[in-house]
C-alpha cells in the first residue's frame, strides 16, 4: 500500500495507517534529524515528534502535489531548522542532553574518520550540510533528495560535487594540522 493511501486512511481515522507510515520512516527520520542537529538524539526525537504532530494536523489537507516521503522529509528538515534557531537564541544552560559523540560508548564505537567528518561537516554552511546529509542518507535516492530540496537533479549533483570537495579540503587541512602537531616535539 502506498504512503499516500496510508495517509488518506489515517485522515479518515485509521490510526494503524499512521503506525504503518511510522514504521516505514521514523527511524530514518530520527537518523537524519540527528545528523542535522549535530548528533543530538534528544533534539532529533523532539523534531520528529513535532513533525508527526504536523502530519497528523495537516493530513486531511495533504493534496498529493508531492509524494508523502518528500513532504515528510521537508517537515522534518524545517523542524530541525526551527530547533536549531530556537536553541541558538536560548542557550542550553540547564539542559544536559546526551550528545552522541560525547557518549563514551559512542566514542569507543565510532571510527575516528566519522568524528572528523562530523566535526568538518559542522563547520560547513547549513545548506551544504543539509545537502550532504540528504544525499548520503540511506532513506533517499539523489532524485528524492532533489525533490526534497526542490531543486533539479543536475543542480543537486553539481552542488554535491562542490560540497564534497569542500569537505575533503576541510578534512585535508585537519589532517595536515594533525600531522604538524604530531611531529612537533
Amino acid at each position, binding site marked *: 500500500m502506498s504512503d499516500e493511501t496510508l495517509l488518506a486512511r489515517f485522515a479518515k481515522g485509521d490510526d494503524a495507517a499512521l503506525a504503518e507510515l511510522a514504521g516505514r520512516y521514523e527511524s530514518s527520520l530520527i537518523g537524519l534529524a540527528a545528523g542535522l542537529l549535530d548528533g543530538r538524539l534528544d533534539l*532529533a526525537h523532539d523534531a520528529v515528534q513535532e513533525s508527526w504532530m504536523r502530519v497528523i494536523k495537516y493530513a486531511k489537507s495533504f493534496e498529493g502535489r508531492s509524494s508523502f516521503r518528500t513532504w515528510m522529509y521537508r517537515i522534518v528538515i524545517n523542524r530541525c531548522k526551527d530547533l536549531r534557531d530556537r536553541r541558538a537564541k536560548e542557550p542550553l544552560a540547564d539542559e544536559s542532553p546526551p550528545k552522541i559523540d560525547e557518549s563514551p560508548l559512542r566514542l569507543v564505537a565510532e571510527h575516528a574518520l*566519522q568524528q572528523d567528518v562530523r566535526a568538518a561537516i559542522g563547520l560547513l554552511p547549513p545548506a551544504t550540510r543539509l545537502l550532504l546529509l540528504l544525499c548520503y542518507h540511506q532513506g533517499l535516492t539523489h532524485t528524492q533528495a532533489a525533490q526534497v530540496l526542490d531543486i533539479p537533479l543536475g543542480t543537486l549533483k553539481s552542488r554535491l560535487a562542490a560540497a564534497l570537495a569542500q569537505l575533503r579540503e576541510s578534512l585535508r587541512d585537519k589532517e595536515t594540522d594533525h600531522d604538524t602537531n604530531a611531529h612537533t616535539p
Partner: protein
Amino acid sequence: MNASNLHPDAIEQALADLSKPVQASADASVALWHAALRASRASATPPRRSVFTREIRLPQLATIAACLLLFLLASAIILPSLGKARSSARVATSAQVASDGLVMERTSPMQLKMMEGRPPPASTAPVSSPAIDLSPAQSPSLTPAPARQVVHKAAIDLRVTDVRGTFAKITLLPNEATGEYIETSSLTGEEPNIAASLTLRVAASRLSETLNALRTLGTVISESATGQDITDTVMDLEARLRNEERIEREVLALLDKRADSPLSEVLTVRTQLNDIRARIEAIKAQRERAGRMVALATIVINLRSQAQPLPVAEDSGIADYFIKSVSDAWQTSLRTLSDTAAFLIRTFLGGLVWWLLLGLLALGLWRLIRRLVRAQSREAAPTE
C-alpha cells in the same frame, strides 16, 4: 586519521553513518508517532481558517482600534482647530485693525495727511483690498475672509510724437492733494533721440484710471502689471506689535509694583523697557511702510520718440544662442532645485507631527505583521 581514511568511499560511508537510521522504540506506546498522536488529540482544536482570525486576539484588536481611533480623533480635532485658529487670527487681526484705526490704507500718518479735510469719494475705495474696509456700515458682521493687502506695480512703454509735451502731461496726472506724487523722473537726450522716464505713485484705487490716461498719450509698446500680496507680512507685524505692547504694559506694571526695588534692578527693567519700545517703534515703522506700499501703486513709464528707432536685438550667432540657452537652463534648473528643496522642507517640517504619528503607526503595524508572519510560518501547513 591517516591518508587512507580520506578515500572517497570512506568519507561517503562516514557521511552515511551520520544520518543512519536510529530506532526510536519498538514499543508502540512510547514511539514518537504515538506520542504525537496523543498530544495532538489532547490539544485538538478546530483548524483556524484565516491568519487574522487565528492570530489577532482581543488585546491586539483593541490596540489597533485604539490607534485608529486616536489617529481619527487627532485628525478630527487638530485639523479643524488649526484652520479655525488661522481664520480667527485673520478675523482678529482685521477686527483689531478696524477697531484700533489701524487700517493701512486709511490711517497711516501719511494717508491721514493726504486725506485730511477731504473724505474719500466712494470710487476711491481701495480696489485692491475689498475686505480691508471693515466699517460697520459696510461690513456689519465679521467674516473670516482675510483682508488682502496687495502692492500694485505697473510698467508701460510708450512711443509718442512729442516726448517733452507728454512728459509734462504725465507730471500732471498725480493728484498731490490725495498724497500721490512723482517718485522719479528723467528726461534725457536731444531730439529726435529724446527719451523720458517717470515713476508715479498714485492711489491704488486710481491705478486703472491712470493707466487708461497714459494709454491715450501715445502708442503702447509694452505694458505689464503685478500685484504682490503682503497680507501675511502685515498680519505678522500686527501680531508682533500687539505682543510687544503687551510686554511693555507688563513691564510697566512690574515697574510700578516694585517701586521700592534696588536701583540696579529698576535700571535693568528700564533698559529692557527701552529695548521693547525700540522694537515697537521699528514695527510701527515697518507697518507704515507696508501701508504706504499698499495705498499707493507704482507706475513706471518709459517714453520714447516716434522718430527714434526701436533698439533692435543684435543678430547673435549660434554660439551666443547656445550660451543664452545654457544660461537659461542653468537658471531654470536652479529655480527648480530651490523649489524642490523648499517643497521638501515644507513637507517634512510642516508635517512633522503627522510623520511621527504615521511612523509610530507604521512601526506598530510592522511589528504586528512580523508577529503574524512568524506565527504563520510556525503554524501554516507544510509545503508539499
